[in-house]
């Protein structure tokens, strides 16, 4: 029973997604491209970097990369927190 409901949900979701996908602009011809054109045209003289992707990652969207570095830090902190030595006796648990 649960399996049947799950399968129906899955097919509804799939139909939903696939029907959406065929409505997107044709592959290889994105439009509009205002933001990306601006970045491709100005990346070199604004950031001095030849790699446009690097200038997007670190300059135009620098905060995302700070967030991304933070996520890595968070995950490492989480992993080391969970795999910690528990020599001292825990009071709370």
């Amino acid at each position, binding site marked *: 029973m649960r399996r049947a409901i799950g399968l129906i949900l899955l097919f509804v979701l799939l139909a939903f997604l696939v029907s959406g996908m065929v409505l997107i602009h044709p592959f290889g011809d994105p439009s509009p491209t205002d933001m990306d054109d601006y970045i491709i045209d100005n990346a070199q003289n604004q950031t*001095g970097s030849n790699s446009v992707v690097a200038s997007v990652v670190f300059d135009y969207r620098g905060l995302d990369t700070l967030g991304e570095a933070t996520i*890595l830090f968070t995950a490492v902190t989480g992993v080391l927190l969970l795999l910690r030595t528990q020599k001292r006796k825990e009071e709370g648990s």
Partner: protein
Amino acid sequence: MLSKIVRTVANQLILFILIFGLYVIAHGHLTPGGGFQGGAVVVSGVVMLLVAFSSHDLKKSLREPVLSIMESTGALIFAILGFAGLGTVFFYNFLVGSPIFGRVPPTGPGPGDFWTGGFIPLMNFAVGLKVIAGLSAVILAIALFARGEEMEE
């Protein structure tokens, strides 16, 4: 621990992997690559050492507090580079036009100049440091835990 052949080859190969990883990090602003990618390359070398030797042996050379400090330092350098732009705006690329990495290349296709990019190469180094330390720590911690050992606090 694997056979002597594997260990010897791994010992020699780690140097090349390290150099390639550092090359990818250093040229992040000119070629495809950057801090994350180069860091992942270096960490793949660490994984190779983990396979060739044992996690017990590796624990002695890669100690957890050292990795922790390296990781925090990388993250801090990144954040401080963001803060350094606060004279104008957070994340303002304040190094463009300065003597350090401040050259601006001619617009259009070109051979690429290492001393360009403003703070981007510095950020690549910070992120590379962070990724190397962070992912090594995660992999080592999981490997040690699976063996029933623990990293020292």
